[in-house]
């Protein structure tokens, strides 16, 4: 276990600035998720921590020691790759035992440790197989086992579940969470899947264009997004974002009239999560009124999309909700619903 500190770390490829100067402290034992869309610099940041990419400027500290110039093998880390990175010519046992072999463990010690680790990830019966003889989920387990076979200071995981099918991803997510709880090793996890980030992380660093735009607990990231980008990126379905103006304590946009406690201003975006809206009869005191545009049954609920002019608002209704498309409906915020206001130009929270 170790604390990881990035101090003014920057990465350039020639004149291209991939990761602008930024600082980040990952606490000992923490599960930090770097979350963002493709090309936002999350993998580059992780690869700098791993030592697979040179750091252009700044300091990287692992366990209080500056490791900028240390090769990956001397950083005492383990990494799980998106495409597993298994050695195809070795058996499962050889794959798992390879880091031990390189660190001079004798055969007996190696075999014992490999067997113990394989049991932990339920690979005990597959030790003699080669990676080509395994399913995606089993390969991922081998990659995990190879990472946890020794106890490194830090685990790095680069989208480890992205090649698995949806069902397996959910299972593996729970296993990762359990493993982290059991081992307590500081973990940095890269993903573009917000569900993975929300369910696994102690803290989430949301990244955009190489910068961390919000660093907080999953709960805070969801409930108090710092800006429009985070608000639109987190949540499925995403937060409703409605362009409008605030005048005399009321937010107005096509089809929307909502009392808000904010000073008058134009160019403002109101955000409200679909699950914080209630469907009410069209002639009631609805604060958003529009025509039913789409109904999507998700199983436990129905996503109801209303449209009025350029304004589109989505709400989560009951599973039994049904109405003909084109019906006029209205929505009201539930009691205690959080309304988020953002400046349209800067994207920052008002």
């Amino acid at each position, binding site marked *: 276990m170790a604390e990881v500190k990035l101090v003014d770390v920057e990465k350039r490829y020639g004149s291209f600035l991939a990761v602008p100067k930024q600082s980040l402290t990952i606490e000992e034992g923490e599960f930090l998720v770097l979350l963002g869309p493709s090309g936002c610099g999350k993998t580059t940041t992780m690869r700098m921590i*791993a*030592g*697979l990419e040179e750091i252009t400027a700044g300091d990287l500290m692992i366990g209080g020691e500056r490791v900028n110039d240390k*090769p*990956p*093998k001397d950083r005492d*880390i*383990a*990494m799980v*790759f*998106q*495409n*597993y*990175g*298994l*050695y*195809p*010519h070795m058996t499962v046992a050889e794959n798992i035992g*390879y*880091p031990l072999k*390189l*660190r001079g463990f004798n055969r007996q010690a190696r075999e014992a440790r490999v067997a113990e680790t394989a049991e932990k990830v339920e690979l005990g019966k597959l030790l003699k197989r*080669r990676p*080509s*003889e395994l399913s995606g989920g089993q390969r991922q387990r081998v990659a995990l086992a*190879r990472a946890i076979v020794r106890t490194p200071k830090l685990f790095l995981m680069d989208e480890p579940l992205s090649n698995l099918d949806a069902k397996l991803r959910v299972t593996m997510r729970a296993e990762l969470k359990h493993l982290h709880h059991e081992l307590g090793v500081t973990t940095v996890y890269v993903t573009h899947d917000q569900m993975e980030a929300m369910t696994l992380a102690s803290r989430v660093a949301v990244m955009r264009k190489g910068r961390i735009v919000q660093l907080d607990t999953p709960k805070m990231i969801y409930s108090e997004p710092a800006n429009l980008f985070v608000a639109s990126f987190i949540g499925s379905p995403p937060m409703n974002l409605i362009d409008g103006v605030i005048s005399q304590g009321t937010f107005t946009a096509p089809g929307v009239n909502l009392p808000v406690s904010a000073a008058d201003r134009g160019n403002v975006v109101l955000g409200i999560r679909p699950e914080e809206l209630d469907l009410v009869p069209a002639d009631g005191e609805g604060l958003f009124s529009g025509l039913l545009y789409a109904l999507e049954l998700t199983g436990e609920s129905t996503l109801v999309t209303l449209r009025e002019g350029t304004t589109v608002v989505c709400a989560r209704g009951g599973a039994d909700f049904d109405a003909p498309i084109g019906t006029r409906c209205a929505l009201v915020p539930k009691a205690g619903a959080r309304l988020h206001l953002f400046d349209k130009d800067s994207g920052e929270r008002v």
Partner: protein
Amino acid sequence: MRDRPLSYLLLVPAFLIVLATTLYPLAYSFVIAFREWDLTKQNRPGTFVGLDNFTYAFTEPGFLNSLWVTTIFVVTSVVLTLFIAMSLALLLRRTGRMHTFTRIILILPFAMSPALIGVSYRFMFNPEFGVIAKGLGAIFPALQGVPWLASPDLSMAILVLTDVWHWSPYMTFMCLGGLASVPRETEEAARIDGASGFRIFFGIVLPQMKGVLMVVAVLKTIFALKMFDQVVTLTGGGPGNSTETLAYFIFNVGFKWYDMGYASALAWILTGIMMLISIWYVRMLLSERKVATA
């Protein structure tokens, strides 16, 4: 399905050409390998002699010498080509302007005709005016006036050198292709697991390139077994018969001594050797695939 007769019909011209230029000569050479046929005495194959042409080969010093010469040539040129091709591929693996430029100019030796390479090197190693001979003499005075192509060992070395020079670029490209198919993640995983560069190459990269390296080795072996052009234009099989490869010896038997029966038998012995190598290679490849797809 209706197009099936037409597809066979379209294949007919190609089949006829292959039949006339390859299959018929091949079958005919097999027939005359069991006959006596001295072209200076008769214009048609003579009496049936059974396996005499084949058994004679293994008692005849000329053939045994060419077999030995070919073995030395094949082993040294294959090993050196493989080593140089793999080394160059590792150097050229990175991307960048210099690497791309080097890759482009690297193909030039392969674009040259083998016969022309032989002639060029013969001139370049001429002790009187050859640029390499003179250059080496200027750098190392002890090498001044060395009769490069008049020494059995040196002429073999030069023959190997020209062949390696000719084939290394092509094999480098094959190795580059092989290297590109090795997932970067396996190397990076090994770096993080604690492997040194040496260990990553020999323990992780090379085993994953086994298939490509086998193709390279087998192709190069077959090409080396057929070595003919450079022998004709560079050494003429000499000095003595020190560089007389099997292909060149067969040519001499057939077209200098006009012993067509014996030459055909020798050609079939060479074919047999190449077939054995090919069969071994295909079996290895199939067993590799079985492991990969199991």
